[in-house]
């Protein structure tokens, strides 16, 4: 796939702003999520979870729970021969065997007639723990004598990381020196010490980002039905039905062909529903009871023992010339992965050293295990944390040198052709255009007046911040079919789970490629038994990859249709055109055949017209980086440190806007998740590794009342291999807000804050420290 598809058929297709097909169902409550599935004999499951972050399991006795009327099965590790020690991933460690390694890890599973009985049964399971020393702080966990998290011999797992980003993992390795360092890597170029010695200004900062939860409103949910033939059906809230099938098969040692995964509407995933979390246990409980079993996590369980984004510490030391020219960058990144390995080190290293071009760099990365829930992806995994560090650093340097921060960043921002740290060239991208769109915005142009208006007439301190962040979306082989139905409409079939409005985009692509209006296209997400093999909905690649397959399948169906029409009309294909609902002979308007006639003839006894079934199977080798710049105008209460956002703008390079309405929603939602990173979110642990904020009252997500309208600006720098030039759009908008907000806070106050979230407390303390340093009371 290296050609840009440029068909500009005169149809209602690509580029049309259009509400999703499924919107009417969603506003009337008819959409079916896992929890809405009703099956005869359905049992409800609950998990008993360890209250301790690290403990030996001395004894589990489920006798009393099993005796409770209405309890149909209680499983502990002893009941599950599939469980093996030295679990590589969370899915493999569905129940603790002899040691729990994070708070909230399941130790027993119950299936009962209803949830009240299941909950009561949990109380009747007796567990004896022996508390073990915990590794909670990632830096202490790196020490050779830290309490060991993984079992000896457990290997690093990078499969999750690879699901997300196209940047090849190079230079990562495992080590045995410190027990909790699961991976380490290093990327270097040039002589950093010599370059640093030439610097006029050296700036050092240590940036910290806590673990955060993806925050989908529908918790993890699955129903499993193990039938008497040993065939398994799973209704799942998942980002990838085929990935779910593969993981369940691997964990349970069952052939994939015996498993059917039905992807239900996914009530939010954002990376947190790539991995199977509840599916394997639901299958085992169904097997044990002979009945379908529903396993739905509670919100408390999600926060205690979901699969959050990692905690990240990034130490940066940079040397620049007096005019700001970058000379050398030294970085150390510590990624806290929780109890099982899975972090994306290389992506972070590449962004640190290559979004802005550093001639000499030495970037080291460590993935560290702690006694906390293991991590998973969260929308552009590692990018918000990494860009928070590097963009803040650049902004800070510019302000120290008295330079305009946006002009400064633009001077040294990568462009297509520049070499990334892994010596791969940056592909053409619109990072620069995104920045320029925002420096032309009134919020940026009027920033001096905005700042000057602060601190007087009862106003708080006012500031403006701009930052850019990006992502290199992934690629994955995929396939699709486009069928012409008897009524002349198209049915597009993929296995793609629609977590981001992608089905609407796929339908628009099919309309454009085939040459009919969108109203004549239906899009179907099949299950793993019926759909053509389709990749995960993750890594901002659905439109880019599945879209390309749908475009090719649509073109294939068009050619088949024209061939049939040529035979029926006794002309050559070259003389035909597809207009409206018919194939017409060019220049002879009364010679035509309706698509519905072709469709009907292909579905008629004795007919010689074969059914039209376009198909496409593709693998990819070209990625398309995608950037989004963000601009914040804010005001700070100097007494309380409270931030009020007065405006927020996102400018994003989308390549080609297939469905602008859907993309706006992605940009606005991504920006608000990014603002959550910036302002309010973080999982907080005490010294024993216990989560202290396991509710949505204490884990603070932003509400409508906390936010202004999010303004969107779409930039279209076509991706050479994307369908119609489209780029991935899901992940880039979550990246830049933490730096944009920190930059705006420095603009308003002169205080540079380096630890997320930027809470009122941290801002107020920063102001106090500033005033002390300035000699004020």
């Amino acid at each position, binding site marked *: 796939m290296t050609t840009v598809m440029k068909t500009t058929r005169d149809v209602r297709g690509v580029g049309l*702003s*259009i*509400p*999703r097909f*499924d*919107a*009417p*169902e*969603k*506003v*009337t*409550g*008819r*959409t*079916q*999520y896992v*929890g*809405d599935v*009703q099956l005869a004999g359905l049992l409800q499951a609950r998990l008993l979870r360890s209250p301790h972050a690290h403990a030996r399991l001395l004894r589990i006795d489920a006798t009393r729970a099993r005796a409770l009327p209405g309890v149909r099965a209680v499983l502990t590790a002893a009941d599950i021969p599939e469980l093996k020690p030295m679990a590589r991933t969370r899915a493999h460690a569905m129940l603790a065997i002899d040691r729990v390694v994070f708070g909230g890890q399941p130790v027993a599973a119950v299936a009962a007639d209803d949830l*009240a009985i299941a909950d009561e049964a949990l109380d009747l399971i007796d567990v004896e723990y022996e508390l073990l020393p915990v590794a909670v702080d990632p830096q202490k966990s790196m020490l050779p004598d830290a309490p060991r998290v993984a079992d000896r011999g457990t290997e690093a797992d990078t499969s999750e990381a690879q699901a997300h980003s196209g940047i090849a993992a190079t230079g990562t390795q495992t080590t045995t020196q410190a027990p909790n360092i699961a991976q380490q890597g290093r990327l270097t170029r040039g002589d950093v010490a010599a370059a640093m010695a030439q610097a006029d200004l050296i700036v050092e900062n240590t940036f910290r980002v806590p673990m955060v939860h*993806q*925050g*989908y*409103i*529908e*918790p993890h949910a699955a129903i499993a039905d193990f039938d008497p033939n040993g065939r398994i059906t799973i209704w799942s809230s998942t980002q990838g039905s085929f990935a779910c099938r593969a993981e369940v098969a691997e964990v349970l040692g069952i052939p994939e062909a015996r498993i059917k995964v039905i992807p239900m*509407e*996914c*009530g*939010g*995933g*954002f990376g947190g529903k790539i991995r199977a979390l509840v599916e394997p246990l639901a299958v085992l409980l169904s097997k044990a009871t002979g009945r379908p079993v529903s396993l739905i996590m*509670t*919100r*408390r369980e999600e926060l205690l023992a979901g699969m959050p984004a990692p905690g990240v510490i990034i130490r940066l030391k940079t040397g620049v010339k007096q005019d700001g020219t970058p000379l050398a960058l030294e970085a150390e990144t510590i990624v806290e992965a929780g109890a099982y390995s899975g972090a994306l080190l290389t992506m972070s290293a590449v962004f640190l050293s290559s979004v802005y071009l550093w001639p000499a760099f030495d970037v080291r990365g460590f993935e560290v295990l702690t006694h906390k829930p293991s991590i998973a992806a969260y929308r552009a995994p590692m990018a918000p944390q990494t860009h928070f560090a590097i963009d803040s650093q650049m902004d800070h340097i510019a302000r120290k040198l008295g330079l305009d921060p946006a002009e400064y960043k633009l001077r040294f921002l990568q462009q297509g052709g520049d070499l990334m740290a892994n010596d791969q060239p940056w592909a053409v991208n619109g990072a620069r255009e995104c920045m320029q769109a925002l420096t032309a915005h009134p919020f940026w142009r009027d920033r001096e007046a905005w700042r000057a208006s602060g601190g007087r007439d009862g106003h708080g301190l006012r500031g403006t911040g701009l930052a850019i962040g990006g992502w290199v979306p992934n690629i994955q082989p995929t396939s699709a079919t486009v069928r012409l139905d008897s009524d002349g409409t198209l049915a597009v079939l993929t296995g793609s789970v629609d*977590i*981001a*409005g992608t089905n609407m985009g796929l339908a628009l692509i099919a309309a454009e490629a085939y040459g009919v209006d969108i109203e004549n296209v239906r899009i179907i997400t099949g299950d793993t038994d019926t759909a053509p093999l389709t990749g995960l909905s993750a890594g901002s690649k659905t439109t880019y990859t599945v879209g390309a397959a749908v475009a090719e399948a649509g073109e294939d169906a068009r050619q088949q249709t024209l061939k049939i029409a040529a035979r029926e009309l006794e002309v050559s294909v070259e003389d035909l055109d597809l207009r409206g609902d018919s194939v017409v002979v060019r220049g002879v308007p009364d010679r035509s055949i309706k698509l519905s006639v072709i469709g009907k003839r292909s579905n008629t006894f004795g007919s010689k017209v074969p059914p039209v079934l376009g198909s496409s199977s593709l693998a990819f080798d070209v990625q398309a980086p995608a950037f989004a710049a963000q601009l914040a105008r804010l005001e700070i209460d100097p007494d309380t440190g409270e931030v009020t956002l007065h405006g927020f703008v996102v400018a994003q390079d989308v390549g080609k806007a297939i469905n602008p*309405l*859907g993309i*706006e*929603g992605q940009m*606005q*939602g*991504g*920006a*608000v*998740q990014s603002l959550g990173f910036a302002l309010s979110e973080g999982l907080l642990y005490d010294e024993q590794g216990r989560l202290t904020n396991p*509710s*949505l*009252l204490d884990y603070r*997500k932003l*509400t*409508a*009342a*906390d*936010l202004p*309208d*999010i303004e969107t600006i779409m930039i279209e720098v076509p991706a050479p291999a994307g369908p119609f030039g489209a780029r991935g759009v899901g992940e880039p908008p979550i990246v830049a807000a933490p730096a944009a907000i920190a930059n705006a806070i420095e603009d308003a106050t002169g205080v540079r804050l380096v630890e997320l979230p930027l809470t009122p407390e941290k801002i107020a303390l920063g102001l106090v420290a500033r005033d002390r340093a300035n000699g004020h009371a």
Partner: protein
Amino acid sequence: MPKMLLSCTINDEPAELLVQPYHTLLEAVRDVARLTGTKEGCGTGDCGACTVHVDGRPVASCLVLAMQVRGRDVRTVEGLAANGTMHPVQAAFVAHGVPQCGFCIPGVLMSASALLADNAAPSEAEIRLGIAGNLCRCTGYTKMVAAIQDAAGRMSQ
């Protein structure tokens, strides 16, 4: 525990439901009345996904015991449309492209429709406050606010 008979009105129709004394209104609506449009996002009243109307007021149905609505008037998202026509706020949510994953949407619609019944011409700040009890992770709220403003305009015509 013996079940209890809950008599109330749900979506303008008389309903008699056999519920446990410990059942929440959310469980009664979803599991007993089988109206699954109302969602559970947290079970602790913090996310708003389970919002329904009781006597026209929006409540978090996960925090109300089922038997507390005896003799009262309950409305869920399934009862927001009247005579087969969507409530203006539902229609505006479709037209503005609000729903993404959709899980929070029924709750937001119940909060928004209660707000508009109370205040025919809310300001942007009033709308934002009116749905501040509903967490949405997909949309960033911008299109929701615009859609509610649009619906208010249409309803006052």
